[in-house]
């Protein structure tokens, strides 16, 4: 497709389960971001990739959160031992330019609900 694709769109997990969220950015886009959007809040930065290199992971809330982009295209955000406070929409965004410049294109998000 032409846009940023995320899957699954909706995920319900029991507390303690591991989840994996996938992002397929626009083809050729160099920069890839993950954001977390809690209910009633704006998106908050989690991590940034330039190609396959994870240049910043300062926004990851704990070591239960892990992201990868091994071939510089598709990215996976993994959350281990999910907690209720992890419930949020996880947004992926990509940009054609390095250093995160240029227009960001967002996917529709993956809504995670932890019971």
């Amino acid at each position, binding site marked *: 497709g032409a846009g*940023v694709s995320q899957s699954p769109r909706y995920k319900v997990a029991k507390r303690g389960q591991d989840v994996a969220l996938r992002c397929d950015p626009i083809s050729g886009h160099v*920069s890839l971001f993950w954001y977390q959007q809690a209910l009633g809040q704006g*998106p908050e*930065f989690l991590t*940034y990739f330039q190609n396959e290199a994870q240049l910043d992971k300062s926004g990851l809330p704990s070591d239960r959160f892990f992201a990868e982009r091994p071939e510089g295209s598709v990215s996976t955000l993994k959350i281990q031992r999910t907690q209720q406070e992890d419930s949020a929409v996880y947004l992926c965004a990509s940009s054609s330019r390095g*250093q*995160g410049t240029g227009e*960001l294109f*967002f996917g*529709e998000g993956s809504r995670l609900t932890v019971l």
Partner: protein
Amino acid sequence: DQQVKQNSPSLSVQEGRISILNCDYTNSMFDYFLWYKKYPAEGPTFLISISSIKDKNEDGRFTVFLNKSAKHLSLHIVPSQPGDSAVYFCAARSNTGFQKLVFGTGTRLLVSP
């Protein structure tokens, strides 16, 4: 610490009138500001931006004003249309290192016919 603030969670206007959405920021390193629009169950989409070297940028019905001394920006939509009903996020980024966006909490705009 909320570096980008949108103090009005919601705004209602009538079709044809002007909508004014406000945003304040605290980080003086921010040099580029953006507005994103978000419909339910969709990702945010870019609307309009402004560099800190300017004080106004216009694109059709949308105009963004920047007051650097007050660390304040606003988005004007005129005339407002029912299809403009959405959540609007203000975002900012600095020129230090790579350019991650810092978002406000959003303002829900409802334009009634």
